[in-house]
């Protein structure tokens, strides 16, 4: 998983930072686009990509798709280290 490449996308970066700060959050694309103040369509594309990579987990039903942060400790630690090294939060 190449985090530098993933973080090049500003929307993907915002989504990861949001979920890393709010790890218990489960929300729809619309909800997430509100929290990170980004266009819904861009957020939907980014969410699908992050789910494909494994950074996000998808909870899907016939009427709702909820996205949540991975529970994989290794991925979370890698992201934590990357954020500490590259962002002043």
């Amino acid at each position, binding site marked *: 998983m190449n985090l530098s490449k993933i973080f090049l996308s500003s929307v993907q970066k915002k989504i990861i930072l949001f979920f890393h700060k*709010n*790890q*218990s*959050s*489960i*929300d*729809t694309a619309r*909800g997430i686009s509100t*929290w990170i103040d980004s266009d819904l369509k861009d957020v939907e594309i980014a969410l699908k990509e992050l789910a494909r990579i494994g950074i996000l*987990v998808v*909870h899907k*039903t*016939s*009427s*709702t798709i*909820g996205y*949540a942060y991975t*529970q994989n*400790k290794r991925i*979370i630690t890698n992201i934590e280290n990357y954020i500490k090294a590259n962002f002043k939060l």
Partner: protein
Amino acid sequence: MQDEYQIELFKKFSENIDFRKEKNVFNHIFGKSYWQIYIYPGKENFNPAKIARSIFKRINLSEKDYLSCTSNLLECLKRAESSKQLSYFKYKSNTSGICFPISQGDRLYGFIVVCNIKKDLNADMLNLFSCYTDTVLKEIQRELELNKLYDTIRPRAIALSTIHTVHRLISSTLELDELIPRIARLSMQVLRARRCSIMLIDSKRKMLMPKANIDVKRRHIRLKKQKIGVGIEGIVATTAKSILKNYIIAVPLIDQDVIGVITVERRLDNRPFSIFDQEILTTLAEQAVVAIRNAQIYEEQEKITIGTIKSLASILDSKIPYAYPHTTSFVDLVLAVAEELELPKEELKHLHYASLLHDAGKITIPDRIFKKPTKLTGKEYGIIKKHPSISVRIIKPLEVLKPALPIIIAHHERYDGTGYPKGLRADKIPIGARIMAVVDAFEAMICKRPYRKAMSFEEAVIEIKQNSGTQFDPKVVDAFLRLVKRGVVRRLLKGCIKHESQ
């Protein structure tokens, strides 16, 4: 003692662009003056003498001037402290200073002290300074209030949105087998736990029956029953009270009475669970109970519906003893082919209903036609061909069976369009009807009739293959043949085949 708000206020003040502009403006008016901001440390720790000394040390004054300036500023600071209004002071013959208290209501936060003003300060100038500084202060305070509101509201809004999304995800299914594991996964996600289990009470056996046990590493682990009153879950079930320990939370699922227990274990970050986590799990449990009860009621309703339909089918079958009733496995085989084709659950349900009642219309066909050992006349065949429409007419008043009607009416259609009653072709025939056509034909072939012998299993399979693409949908035939290969068809129709071979 300084608090966070006070520290933040002064940080913002010193960084504020408008405050810097104010300094520039007043330096033009006052001449180059000396500005300093001081945090008020509280009445007990307030040392105005120390402030006064620290200011005048930076301005080179003679010993004589130093003492008088310090005492004047000291008085000014005391006045500003008590009145919380701008105060000014003079020192030497031609130099002034201003002391502006930074306050909000009765609370004093600090002072802005301006010294070395080489101009006489009149009331207008002091008013101007007061208004300008007040405006800047109010802007900063508003910004801090908004930040505080944002910091307070945002996490709560995000948590509320999570609860809402979880509610939507839980409410979107009425299948218990799908619902309970989903509740467990969502609970594990929200609480960042390594494991979540859900147990429901079996009141007859006085046991808690495990329904979901999800672990973050191994998705499915061995499920164990638990006696009520024993173990953490058993105690929660008895007392109807939650248990919170460092590494486990168990919350009762309550719908008038306790119906089960939901338990989460071990946070991913290894921190102990808190009261806040318990509150969240309690909220999730309340949502879960509603969803579980809805699913249970739906399941009971489905059982009643199926039971009613089976009774109706039995009554109809008993009225037409010569109408070659299907084997008891007919429905099972139709559903097996449908599952092999991965039809959605809702379609499986309608197909189930259709397969029980599709021949209801045969009740109008005279027995002599069923018992006839020779070929039917055109007129007699015409009577037979009406039975799908009559089946529909009989069943139509039952609202719950409405989705099954298109399957019932089309179960004698042929893939090549030469069937009846409407001559539908290929995909225009509902998939349920295409499945029933294959199973119906196969079963008829391996069963004896007054006008012919039963075929062997193998002969019937060949016949199905040969009619793929004409009478039967090739996709359905392939699915059927896969079941033949796996022995499913032979197993389900064992009674019929064995009976006929005797």
